[in-house]
């Protein structure tokens, strides 16, 4: 154990001199945050909601008043349905809500029809549309509960969190954490081991009595420590420099991050087993990481993923990692709340460990 820890310490010290690794491990993700945090996205997500009130009664007025209290919504009420839909198409509105003429807030009698709110969305604005839709359904649910006096089945706390103005950078930060952990696991393992194998470093080390498992253990431990340090530093910069709000617990974030790091390290070792040269490593790491970068909700909500890719996107390891990190960071979810994602990560960890065990080779 002393050998593993001593080796890990020396590896960490060498890492601090590796400019390329430091750039990709710390500066690169921070640049992303800065870029997206400062550009336009800097402000809160604002949803331009046009409400077309065809009922024009007390109840529709009080419904609109409720909506107007929500900070995230910027509400216009003047227009007609057709004119507003045209504006929606032109991108001047994010959503158009039509309140039907039979609108009323009252318990529905069995068999009677319930007034139907119509919501027009612009599919080109999926992001803001999704936020607005979430808020509206929360309000409608709340109204229903109030009227029917049934106990809410949705937690009020999470509605407040959704209602809180979620800045883009709040949304982005957990995605950047996930991306960084993926890069640490896959790229750092693939490039380091392929290069050391090619240059004869591993061969030289294997001419000493150090057991192979100790050698690999030190490299794994070093990267797990790096994952924790990266998460802490990126979060600190996000919170203090970019005013990111992190709702959930730091401990939960770290645990999920470490689990994610284990998954991606195992995947990295598995991929490395198939590679002989650094050029191959460059291609292979892109093949593994690029699809996840776009399909797993790093920069944008996964709502934007085309339907035919969803069955794949939903089960990618980075999807589980990002969803868990994001739920914890933006809504204050607990480890139990993100249990599904954690199970997904554990399954990936087991599968990729078996792959790594089968495929990885030192020489």
């Amino acid at each position, binding site marked *: 154990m*002393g*050998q593993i820890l*001593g*080796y890990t310490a*020396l590896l960490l*010290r*060498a*890492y601090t*001199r*590796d400019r390329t690794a430091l750039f990709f491990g710390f500066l690169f993700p921070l640049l992303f945050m800065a870029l997206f945090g400062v550009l336009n996205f800097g402000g809160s997500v604002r949803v331009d909601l046009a409400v077309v009130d065809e009922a024009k009664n007390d109840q529709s007025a009080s419904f609109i008043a409720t909506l107007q209290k929500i900070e995230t919504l910027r509400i216009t009420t003047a227009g007609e349905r057709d004119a507003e839909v045209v504006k929606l198409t032109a991108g001047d509105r994010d959503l158009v809500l039509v309140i039907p003429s039979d609108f009323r807030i009252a318990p529905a009698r069995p068999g009677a029809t319930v007034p139907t709110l119509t919501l027009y969305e612009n599919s080109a604005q999926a992001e803001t549309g999704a936020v607005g839709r979430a808020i509206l359904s929360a309000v409608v649910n709340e109204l229903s509960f109030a009227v029917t006096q049934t106990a809410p089945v949705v937690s009020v706390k999470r509605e407040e969190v959704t209602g809180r103005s979620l800045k883009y950078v709040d949304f982005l930060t957990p995605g950047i954490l996930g991306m960084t952990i993926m890069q640490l696991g896959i790229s750092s393992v693939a490039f380091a081991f392929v290069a*050391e194998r090619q*240059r*004869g*470093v591993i*061969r*030289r*080390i*294997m*001419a*000493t*009595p*150090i057991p192979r498992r100790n050698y690999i253990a030190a490299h794994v431990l070093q990267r797990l420590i790096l994952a924790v340090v990266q998460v802490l530093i990126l979060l600190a910069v996000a919170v203090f420099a970019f005013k990111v709000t992190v709702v959930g617990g730091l401990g939960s974030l770290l645990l999920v991050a470490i689990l994610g790091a284990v998954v991606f390290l195992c995947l990295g070792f598995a991929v490395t087993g198939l590679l002989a040269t650094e050029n191959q490593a460059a291609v292979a790491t892109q093949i593994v990481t690029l699809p996840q970068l776009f399909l797993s909700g790093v920069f944008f909500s996964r709502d934007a993923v085309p339907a035919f890719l969803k069955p794949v996107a939903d089960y990618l390891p980075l999807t589980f990692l990002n969803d868990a990190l994001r739920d914890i960071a933006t809504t204050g979810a607990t480890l139990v709340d993100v249990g599904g994602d954690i199970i997904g990560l554990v399954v990936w960890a087991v599968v990729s460990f078996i792959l790594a065990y089968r495929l990885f080779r030192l020489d």
Partner: protein
Amino acid sequence: MDGVTFDVAEREIFALLGPNGAGKTTTVEILEGLREADSGTARVAGVDVRKDPSGVKERIGVQLQQSAFPENFVAREIVDLFALFYRKRVDSMAILRSVGLEDKADQKQEKLSGGQRQRLSIAVALVNEPQVLFLDEPTTGLDPQARRNLWELVRAIRARGTTVFLTTHYLDEAEALCDRVAIMDGGRIVALDSPPALIQALLGRGFSKPIVQQQANLDDVFLDLTGHALREE
């Protein structure tokens, strides 16, 4: 390889010579416990290599051909790192001093010159105070000054009681440095003796070449003009 049999005495400097593909590196790797022989036995420092490869690794120091050290480590850390691999505590500065690298202790190893890196490589091979030191083509790519410097280092290591086993393509090096040499070709040992004895044997077989008496050779000219001092690259 076929029927390669030889003994190396304690405190001897022994060289394995031969053209590329003769089986030198294969032989060395078998002795170092890096490669398994299909048949036969090899004992190094009293340990059977096949039965206890890690026991052999504990007792030998190696410098491999075409090997490298991990990047972003300074010279001193490389020594510490390998000491750790042997679970030994060492005075890394003293070891660097013994190969004349104490002023490079805090320099990244990849920034060292070829000769300096060879000396670091030998320093690392000495961290476990080995009984036998294996050097695979230690002077390939070095300038004449650095080569002679390395010979001195090898002699000093032997003087401390270590057996040195090396391979080389430079026959003048073998002649100047070694007590005995083995010449391999096509996976067999074709001759094994001290350099003077091998030369005598050749002459005894009736070999002769035109005698050119020179008081000096080009090597002497070069060193006379450029000196013995080591150069920074």
